[in-house]
C-alpha cells in the first residue's frame, strides 16, 4: 500500500494534501516504485523558514495518466536513494549543493553547478576533483568551458587510453543565473521573461509548462482555440529543432548537402513561428489563460502553403542523408546505450525513445490539445547515434502531419481568458513534452498566493549523465557526434 497522491498533469491540489510520511517509508516507497517501472520526475528539497525542510518526490508512470507525489521531513542528512535508484543521482547532488542536506552514502557526491575553487576561493574553470585513472599510458583530455564553436560553455574531462575513452566527466554550471530563486515570491512582470529564456531553444516548451502550472493554480480554463494554437507552436518548435539537429549531425559527419539544406529549412520553420507572433522563437506567444496572437484564415492558408514546401524540402534533404551508405556507416553503432541503462538513469525524450523506452508525455500524461489529437510515439531499439537521428526524423513527419491537421481544423472561439490571481496554498505539477523531452515544473503557492516553490526540471537535467554513459568504451573522436545526437541545453540545466 503506497501513500502517493496521484494527480493529473497540471491539476492543482491543496498544498496541505501533499502526503507526508516518515523518511524510511518515503525512501522505501520511492525506491520500490522506481524499481517497479515508475520514473523519477522530480526529487527536491524544500526549505522554508517557518517549517522544517522536506523532500518531495514526483513519479511518473505509477498510475495511468497521473503523476504521483510524496514528501517527507528531512534533517541535515539522510540515507541517499542513489545506490538503489540511479535516477536520483543528479537530483541528490543538486539537493546537497542547494540546501546543504547531505545524502549519506551517495557514491559521487560533488556539486553539479558550483565547484568551489581551491581553499574555497572563487571557482576556476575546469578545476575540480575528477574521477581519475592512473597509469603511465593513460592520458586526460580536457575540453572547454570555452569551445571552438559558438556554443554554450561546459567542461568535459576524458580519461583515455589511446583513442578509447574509459570515462567522461561533465562539469556544468557556467550558465547559472539563479532563475528558480528569482521566481520565488512571484509571479511578477519578469516571470514570463524568465520562463521564455530558461532555455532559448525551448521557449515555447517552458512557457507552455509555466502557463499550465499558473492556470492550474488560478483555476483558469483555456479556450479550445488557444489550446490548438499552443499545440501548433509546440510542434513548430519541435520541427525547427529536430530539423536543425539533423542538419548539424550531417555537418558533424561531414555530409554537406543535408547540413546546408537543413540549416535553411530550420530557418523557414522558425519564420513560421515568427508569422504567428512576430518572434522566431515564439516569445510573447503564450500567456496564462491562452495565447496572445490569433491565427486568422489567410494566415492559416499561408502557413499551410509554407508547410507543403517545408515537407518536400526536408523530406528530400533528410532522406538523402539516410540513403547515403557512408553516413549510415558513420552513425550506426556509435554511442549505443541499452534500454536497461536508459531506464535506470532516467533518460527522457527522443534520446530515451531511441533506446526503445516507450515514453512520451503527450500520450502518457496527455494535456491540452494532445487529449483530442494524438501523435504516435516513435521509438527505435538500437540506442546509437543513428537511432537518435532516425527517431527525430520520424517525429518530424508526425509533427508535420499534426500541424497541417490543426491548421485545417482550428476550433472557433476566444484565444485567451483574462488572467486571475493565483489561489493560496495550492500545489501543482505541470509536465509538457518539449522537443528535447519532458519539462517538469513543480509549483506551490503560499498563503498570499505567491510562489513559495518553483522547481524547474529541464530535459537536459535528466540526459547529461546519459551522454557521459554513452562515451564509455567509445572513440574520443566520436564524442562530437554523440554530443550532437543528444544536443543538450547547458542553460536549461544550469538554470
Amino acid at each position, binding site marked *: 500500500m503506497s501513500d502517493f497522491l496521484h494527480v493529473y498533469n497540471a491539476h492543482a491540489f491543496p498544498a496541505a494534501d501533499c502526503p507526508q510520511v516518515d523518511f524510511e517509508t518515503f525512501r522505501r516507497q520511492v525506491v520500490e516504485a522506481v524499481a517497479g517501472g515508475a520514473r523519477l520526475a522530480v526529487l527536491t528539497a524544500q526549505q522554508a523558514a517557518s517549517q522544517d525542510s522536506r523532500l518531495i518526490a514526483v513519479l511518473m508512470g505509477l498510475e495511468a495518466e497521473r503523476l504521483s507525489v510524496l514528501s517527507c521531513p528531512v534533517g541535515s542528512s539522510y540515507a541517499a536513494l542513489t545506490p538503489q535508484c540511479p535516477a536520483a543521482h543528479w537530483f541528490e547532488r543538486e539537493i546537497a549543493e542547494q540546501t546543504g542536506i547531505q545524502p549519506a552514502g551517495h557514491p559521487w557526491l560533488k556539486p553539479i553547478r558550483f565547484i568551489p575553487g581551491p581553499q574555497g576561493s572563487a571557482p576556476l574553470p575546469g578545476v575540480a576533483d575528477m574521477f581519475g585513472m592512473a597509469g603511465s599510458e593513460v592520458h586526460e*583530455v580536457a575540453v572547454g568551458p570555452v569551445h571552438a*564553436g559558438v556554443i554554450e560553455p561546459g567542461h568535459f574531462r576524458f580519461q583515455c587510453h589511446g583513442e578509447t575513452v574509459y570515462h567522461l566527466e561533465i562539469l556544468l554550471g557556467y550558465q547559472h543565473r539563479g532563475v528558480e530563486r528569482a521566481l520565488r515570491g512571484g509571479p511578477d512582470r519578469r516571470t514570463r521573461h524568465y520562463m521564455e529564456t530558461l532555455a532559448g531553444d525551448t521557449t515555447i516548451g517552458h512557457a507552455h509548462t509555466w502557463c499550465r502550472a499558473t492556470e492550474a493554480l488560478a483555476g483558469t480554463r483555456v479556450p479550445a482555440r488557444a489550446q490548438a494554437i499552443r499545440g501548433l507552436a509546440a510542434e513548430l518548435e519541435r520541427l525547427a529543432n529536430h530539423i536543425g539537429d539533423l542538419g548539424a549531425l550531417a555537418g558533424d*559527419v*561531414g555530409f*554537406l548537402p543535408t547540413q546546408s539544406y537543413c540549416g535553411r529549412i530550420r530557418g523557414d520553420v522558425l519564420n513560421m513561428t515568427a508569422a504567428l507572433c512576430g518572434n522566431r522563437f515564439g516569445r510573447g506567444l503564450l500567456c496564462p489563460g491562452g495565447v496572445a496572437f490569433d491565427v486568422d484564415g489567410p494566415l492559416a492558408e499561408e502557413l499551410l502553403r509554407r508547410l507543403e514546401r517545408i515537407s518536400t524540402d526536408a523530406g528530400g534533404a533528410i532522406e538523402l542523408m539516410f540513403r*547515403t551508405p557512408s*553516413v549510415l556507416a558513420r552513425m550506426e553503432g556509435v554511442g549505443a546505450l541499452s534500454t536497461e541503462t536508459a531506464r535506470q538513469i532516467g533518460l527522457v525524450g527522443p534520446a530515451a525513445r531511441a533506446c526503445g523506452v516507450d515514453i512520451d508525455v503527450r500520450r502518457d500524461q496527455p494535456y491540452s490539445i494532445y487529449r483530442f489529437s494524438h501523435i504516435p510515439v516513435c521509438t527505435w531499439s538500437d540506442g546509437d547515434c543513428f537511432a537518435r537521428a532516425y527517431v527525430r526524423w520520424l517525429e518530424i513527419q508526425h509533427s508535420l502531419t499534426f500541424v497541417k491537421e490543426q491548421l485545417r481544423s482550428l476550433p472557433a472561439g476566444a484565444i485567451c481568458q483574462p488572467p486571475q490571481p493565483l489561489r493560496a496554498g495550492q500545489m501543482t505539477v505541470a509536465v509538457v513534452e518539449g522537443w528535447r523531452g519532458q519539462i517538469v515544473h513543480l509549483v506551490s503557492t503560499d498563503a498570499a498566493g505567491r510562489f513559495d516553490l518553483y522547481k524547474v526540471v529541464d530535459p537536459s537535467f535528466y540526459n547529461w549523465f546519459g551522454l557521459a554513459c554513452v562515451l564509455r568504451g567509445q572513440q574520443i573522436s*566520436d564524442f562530437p557526434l554523440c554530443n550532437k545526437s543528444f544536443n543538450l541545453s547547458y542553460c536549461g540545466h544550469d538554470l
Partner: protein
Amino acid sequence: MATAVSILHVVLALVLAPLLLGVINRVKAKFAGRRGQPLLQAYYDIAKLLRKGAVYSRTTTWVFRLGPIVSLAAVVASLLLLPLGAVVAVVAFPGDLLLWVYLLGLMRFVTVLAALDTGSAFEGMGASREVQFSLLAEPALLLGLVALAAWSGGLSLSQLTGTHSTGWLTGTAGAITLLVSASWLAVLLTENARIPVDDPNTHLELTMIHEVMVLDHGGVDLGLIQYAAAVKLWVFAALLAGVLLPVRTAWPLVNLAGGVAGVLAVAMGVGVIESTMARLRLLRVPQMLVAAAVLAALAVVLVLR
C-alpha cells in the same frame, strides 16, 4: 625551352596552389546549394595572416617555430623534383623519387614535432593520428612509384610520367595507370586532410587530424602552414594528373596548360568527393589505406608478371 617551361610550372604552382582550395570550396558550395566563398579566399586568408604578429606559448621551444619554415621549405623543394605529365621537373636524377617522398616525410615530421612541442593533449592526439595514417599511406605511395618505375624502367619521377606514356587507358598499361591512380587518390585525400579521412571545415578539436596539430600556431606561422598545405595539395594533384593525363605533345607549353587543367580537374574531383560522402570513422581509415596499398601492390604484380 623545356627548362623554361619546367621553371614556369614551379612558378605557376607557387602562385596557383591556394586557388585549388577555392576550387574545392566552390564545388562543395554548388553541391550544397550555396553561393560559396570567393574563389580567392585562401589568398586573402594567407595575406591576412602574414600581416599579423604571432603569439608563442611559454612551453614551446625553437622546435615549434622551426616547424612552419622547414615544412614550407621541404614542400617547395619537393616541387622542384616534380614533373607535370610530359613537363619534366627542374631537377631530375635517378632515384629522385625517394628524395621526393622523404621531403614530404620531412614536412610531416617537423609538423608533428612542432605539435608535440606544445605539450597540449589535443596536439598530441592529432600528431598520433597523423603519424598513424601516414605510416599506412606511405606504402601505397611507394608501391605506386615502384610499379611505374618498373614499367618505365627509370628511377626518376620525370621519367615515370614524362618520357614514358602508358598508352593511356588500354591494356596492361591502362590497368596499371588506373590501379596506381586509385591508390594515389586515397593517399592524396589522406595526406591533405580531406574528407573522408579528415574534415577541413570542422571546428571540433576531438575529431580533427591535421588541423588540430596546428591549433597553437598563429599569424605568420599559420600563414606559412596554410600556404605549405596548399602547395602540398598541388604536389599530390600534379602527381595524379601527370599519371592520368594523356597530354603528351611536342609543344611544352601545351603540355603545361594540359597539366594545369588536369590539376584543377583533380581539385574539382576532390570537391565532388567531399560533397557526396560523409567522413569515415577514424577506426575505418586504416582499412581504406591498406586497400589503397593493396591496389598499388596489384599494379606492381601486373608489371612484374
